[in-house]
């Protein structure tokens, strides 16, 4: 059931959140935590479906609302997870919360998501910088769930320092699987670091996926995109096969408040994931 149907069925408006509980809080790094969230209402819980790349609007009552990408595997139906960096009012309130606290959720939102169906039978290259790994997690988890449907898979992930690498356990597990290649890189290594050093864009030239048989997804801080795209273009990847997830200020998530307006599109309803062809037409996007 989509968000809109649900709104209609409950005779609600698009601005009313559903009540959910934080059932588990996992510590990832000094600034990031993962929150496992379960809806109070059984029916809502059962019917909540999302696609990798979509996001929800989370309300901390008394403080406000903010958008967060879903990081869990869409095939999990009982719960979903968010990975949240402590940067401001709402995120810091979440970081202070204990398990069991109630919050409000609207969504899932975003008509632009990672096209995991189209990607089937192709190679997939996933490029993440910093917290950008969060929206990609859902996709990676989905792909690994249906691993045999996809060809080669590679994750390129850059972080500031070894301590800020997120989802370490899971990354460890990927590297043990052997059916997914991994390139990790940090800007500021410590003396134990044995992997790559420098920005993750440097790793792209080494990718040897054929340009006409590869889907690419990118998510990271705003400054990263331009460099990544330059590198990808050098390798002649097709713009319509390169997917980027954008961040903008959002007050509503449903295409009304207009804060995420770029070019002639809205990030919340037309995105947040766009392919490079679309982004080219959005002048201000990068």
């Amino acid at each position, binding site marked *: 059931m989509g968000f809109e149907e649900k709104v209609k069925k409950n005779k609600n408006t698009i601005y009313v959140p559903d009540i959910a509980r934080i059932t588990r809080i996992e510590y990832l790094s000094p600034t990031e935590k993962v929150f496992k969230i379960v809806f109070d209402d059984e029916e809502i819980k059962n019917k909540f479906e999302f696609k990798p790349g979509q996001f929800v609007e989370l309300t901390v009552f*008394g*403080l*406000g609302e903010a958008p967060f990408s879903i990081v869990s595997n869409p095939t999990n139906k009982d719960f979903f997870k968010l990975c949240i960096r402590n940067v*401001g*009012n709402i995120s*810091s*309130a979440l970081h*202070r919360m204990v398990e069991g606290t109630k919050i409000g959720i609207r969504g899932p939102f975003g008509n632009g998501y990672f096209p995991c169906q189209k990607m089937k039978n192709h190679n997939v290259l996933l490029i993440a910088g910093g917290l950008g790994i969060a929206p990609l997690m859902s996709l990676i988890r989905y792909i690994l769930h249906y691993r045999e449907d996809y060809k080669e898979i590679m994750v390129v992930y850059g972080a500031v320092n070894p301590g800020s690498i997120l989802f370490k356990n899971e990354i460890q597990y990927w590297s043990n699987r052997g059916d997914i290649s991994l390139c990790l890189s940090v800007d500021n290594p410590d003396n134990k670091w044995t992997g790559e050093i420098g920005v993750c864009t440097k790793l792209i030239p080494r990718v040897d996926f054929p340009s006409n048989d590869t889907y690419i997804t990118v998510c990271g801080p705003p400054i990263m995109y331009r460099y990544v795209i330059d590198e990808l273009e050098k390798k002649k990847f097709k713009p319509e096969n390169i997917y980027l997830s954008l961040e903008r200020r959002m007050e509503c998530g449903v295409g009304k408040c207009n804060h995420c307006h770029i070019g002639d599109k809205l990030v919340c309803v037309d995105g947040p994931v766009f392919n490079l062809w679309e982004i080219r037409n959005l002048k201000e996007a990068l």
Partner: protein
Amino acid sequence: MNKPKVGVFGFTGCGGCQLEILNLEDQLLDLVNAIEIVHFTELVTEYSDTYEIALVEGSITTKHGVERIKKIGNIAKTIVAIGACAVTGGLNCLKNLYGPEKAKELVYGDKKDWIDSIEVKPIDAYVKVDYYARGCPPNRFEIVDIIRSLIVGRKPEIPNYPVCIECKRNGNTCVFELGITCMGPVSRAGCNSRCPNSVSGCEACRGVIDDPNVNAHKDLLSEYGLTVEDIMEGFNLYNACKGKTIEKRDK
């Protein structure tokens, strides 16, 4: 949730800011319930020196005041400056325009040496101020909002856009249309545009926004027959202590 201990302190000012707290009427009882007032000379006799939040009214104009505000700065975890006098120095700063000696002489004549009076400064000249409830008088709902934000743990939202936005939300006819000049386009909102609401030009009592287009405004005001001095006088009414920053922006 623990009730925060709050002290309300007055320095050189008119007491209007503290009165605005008492003027909360509908919300006063809730407020007194949500916080523990441990110091408030306008209202209560008892006072204590342990508090987490200090609401400070008034500018610092005496040596004794400097000592007091520093002491408050050492005790309070959070300092909220309330009112123009505390935030920008407010009207009190007009005194600085004369120089302290001249001002003393004008009022006290040959007795001027009795007076403990130094250059007027806003409180952030002496202590770190966390939040500013601007305006003369401050908006009492903003004071509540700051306190409430501190209780629930968020940063209070203090507008950094011009008064014109609120003025338009209120559907006012722009006073320039009526031949009255206004500081609204460069002044910080948050007062609910109360002066234009009363068909009176904004006087910038909440200070200017972070990036005011001063040049455009000088051009506009001079079209309305104001001289550079008039314009500076307008800027200075509540911002003489911060006046330099305004002039500096000028090319």
